[in-house]
């Protein structure tokens, strides 16, 4: 039931304090003509029933604190409790961005130091902390590229190359930044093929803006030809954008700057341990090298301008700051090492029972395919995902990247113990056995959840998106 169905007229969950000044007639202040005639039909709930309602809803959720959450490209690592506490210090929560700087010294110092640390991690010249999420960071970075070319008198450059394995936000952000998208097919090894890329760059000719790349890519493979790739793009007058969604694989090993990228975003809610909150809020700071730094939001006359109100998702920035300070350079490198180790160990355990189309080594994540399984038993990647739910695990990302049929994109992260990895591997292997022996049972999974499989088609056909 929703809170609207539990509502009962006259119930109150919170009573504001009495007015301690002489109360003027409302109409005289806000204008009679502006007064609301019918109050909004909000729920009428007691406090205890509100508490029980949302506590019950929370129990129907699965989070990192509930169990293993190997959702590929989402880096569902542990969200340290200390960071939650420190981001909620009253001195942070009550600071106001429009107060004079001398009233915000602590916040400003934290942000300046975070910018500096992100530059050190990423090999960038400057960071803007404004963007509110990964996709917002992409859009911001791409706008910086467009502004750079406009300044160079090359506004005609509007073609951006994006591998077909890229996150959906990449092409969507490019379109929103005013670019025309050309997909670059991945090579047979799952990587950007330099020859194909060179052809695509030549085809774009003088209209080339550049390339958006995730490295390691969404197949969990490091683009080992990255230096050549960067050379091709730069040689054609283009720029390189780094999608930082997968940075968790390479901290302290390489950096976007060292790989030749000109501009990038980070997902502080992935790599830097801020929680996802069921779909945000996140933070997607944008870093730029020397060439594009002047175009970042909040900069000087070349700046693209503001991309949101105020200075950024400050509470998320605090969490990321805490994470980096707690780990230091050695801890971040160790996190990446363990993330890659855990992924390789799992891949090793699972390849065989599932197809591993790109070999037996990976970075922080890997993609399995249930295509052969589906062919032989009728059990799909979706069935495996739902079967995992019944075994107490959050499933991997399914059906993405789309270049792998029946894909299961798995990212264990570094914050999981060997026992957890083993338990997950055992569950995956037993599901592969179930697929052969009892496929019907898997088609009807999950059976242990508050609801079974839901009819998404019906939901989209006749959308009901609010309570009646």
């Amino acid at each position, binding site marked *: 039931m929703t809170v609207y169905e539990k509502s009962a007229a006259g119930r109150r*969950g919170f009573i*504001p304090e009495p*007015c301690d000044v002489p*109360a003027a007639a*409302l109409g005289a202040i806000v*204008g009679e003509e*502006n007064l609301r005639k019918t109050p909004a039909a*909000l729920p009428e709930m007691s*406090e205890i029933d*509100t508490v029980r*309602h*949302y506590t019950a*809803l*929370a*129990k*129907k*959720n*699965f*989070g990192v604190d509930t169990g293993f*959450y190997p959702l590929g490209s989402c880096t569902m690592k542990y969200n340290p409790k200390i960071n939650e506490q*420190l981001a909620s210090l009253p001195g942070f929560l009550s600071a*106001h961005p*429009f107060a004079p700087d001398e*009233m915000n*010294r*602590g916040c400003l110092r934290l942000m300046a130091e975070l910018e500096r640390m992100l530059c050190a991690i990423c090999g960038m010249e400057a960071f803007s902390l404004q963007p509110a999420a990964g996709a917002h960071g992409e859009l911001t970075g791409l706008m910086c590229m467009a502004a750079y070319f406009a300044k160079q008198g090359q506004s005609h450059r509007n073609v951006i190359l994006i591998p077909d394995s890229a996150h*959906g936000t990449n092409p*969507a952000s*490019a379109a929103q930044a005013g670019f025309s*998208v050309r997909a670059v097919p991945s090579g047979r090894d799952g990587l950007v093929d330099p020859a194909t890329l060179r052809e695509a760059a030549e085809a774009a000719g003088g209209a080339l803006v550049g390339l958006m790349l995730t490295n390691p890519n969404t197949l969990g493979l490091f683009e*080992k030809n990255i230096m050549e790739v960067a050379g091709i793009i730069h040689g054609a007058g283009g720029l390189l954008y780094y999608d930082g969604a997968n940075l968790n694989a390479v901290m*302290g090993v390489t*950096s976007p700057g060292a*790989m030749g990228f000109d501009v990038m975003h980070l997902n502080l809610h992935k790599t830097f341990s801020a929680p996802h*909150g069921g*779909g*945000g*809020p996140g933070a997607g700071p944008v870093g730029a090298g020397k060439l594009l730094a002047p175009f970042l*939001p909040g900069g000087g006359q070349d700046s693209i*301008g*503001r991309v*949101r109100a*105020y*200075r950024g998702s400050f509470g*998320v920035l605090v969490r990321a700051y805490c994470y980096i300070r*707690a780990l*230091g*350079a050695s801890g971040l490198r160790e996190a990446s*090492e363990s993330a890659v*180790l855990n992924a390789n*160990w799992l891949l090793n355990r699972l390849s065989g029972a599932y197809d591993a189309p790109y070999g037996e*080594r990976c970075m922080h994540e890997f993609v399995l395919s249930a295509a052969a399984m589906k062919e032989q038993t009728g059990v799909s990647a979706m069935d495996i995902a739902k079967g995992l739910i019944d075994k107490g695990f959050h*499933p991997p990302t399914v059906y993405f990247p789309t270049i792998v049929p029946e894909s299961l994109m798995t990212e264990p992260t570094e914050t999981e*113990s060997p026992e957890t990895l083993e338990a997950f591997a055992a569950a995956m292997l037993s599901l592969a056995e179930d697929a052969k022996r009892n496929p019907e049972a898997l088609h009807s999974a999950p059976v242990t959840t508050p609801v079974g*499989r*839901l009819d*998404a088609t019906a939901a989209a056909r006749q*959308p009901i*998106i609010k*309570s009646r």
Partner: protein
Amino acid sequence: MGSYIPAAKREREKLLGGLGMTSAEELFAAVPPECRIGTMNLPPPLSEPELRRELEALAADNKAPLFIGAGLYDHYIPAAVDALCSLPEFVTAYTPYQPEISQGTLTAIFEFQTAICRLTGLDAANASMYDAATAASEAMLMSAAQTKRKHVIVTAATHPHIKETLRTYARFNGLTVSEAPFDGRGQAALDTAPHGAACVIAQSPNFFGVIEPMRGISAWASGAGAVPVAVCDPLSLGILESPGEMGFAIAVGECQPLGSPVSFGGPHAGYLAAKESFLRRLPGRIAGETGEVGGGKRGFVLTLQAREQHIRREKATSNICSNAALSALRATVYLALLGPEGLRETAALCAQKAAYLRAKLQETGIKPLFDASYFREFAVDTVLDGAAALENPRGSLIAVTEKRTKAEMDAFTALALSQKKGVSI
């Protein structure tokens, strides 16, 4: 110190050994030497107690203003909001891709959408946006797509950060933005009809706290075929007429006043609601009601996904993926606790306390800049410490929430009086 890695060093070595490796370095064999880096230049790692000490010192080096608003307001947050929105199953979940284990988040999104529709008087709301400025920008893009027009009008007294964000988004989408100036009362002057405009974006209460003649603005826009877009503080809608009722096709706003702390400007949630005709142009996540396959229990899923980036890629209605679910949850819980009566009372308290302080200041000779109706904030002709500074026109912007006491307002008045005297001498 440490990396939140549960496996002991020897356990990690064992895992490595199982892969036939002797050193972690071998894991990175695919990374070419040309792009390897040395040690990152970061400060040394801190233990949890050291980290707490450092952050407490940083937090203590800030000071909270009492009368600064300008878009972010210091409202009381009921204890239950914090308690419920800190539940780890809400905090540590991802976007609800697997509905069977995400009914908590999905139900809450559905409730948020319902609350926003009811507050705004519109038909369809999404799961949330980053903030009001980006929500307004998406509304601008929706309007341009719908009308195939390239020009956008925003009322000049709209929050400057919203206007700046609109200009950034407009520039890269081939749109131009112009401003409808405000008159001597601080309200939009509706002289030349907005012919050829994709939309007219108007904030009310506006940046100066003044309530705009919203019915007139929506008629002005609609008359020229422009989409009327309202930017409305959802808390004000406890007492003010809804944008839907006043003829607006799209409404956006900032949910911070509904149960989120100011937190130096974020994170908060934006909302975006529209008439039914815009349903398939809405950006981002939308939760919808459905049933189990083949009938059975009711449940909620992410719906109308054919609009979204993970399906449509460059043809999506927007690039938004992560939004502000947890901040939207705070708004949802806040509204459930307050209910219609609590929201009305809170909004009324803001207006009444603002009226009290405005009159007190006026008694000392500090004059309001505008005489139009207002809600919780007003501009005065004097630059005052403890209020937001205004440059054009010069003065101060003073916000009064229901949290401000008579004693605080009287002290502020006394301080203002001393500053005013200081200026005139």
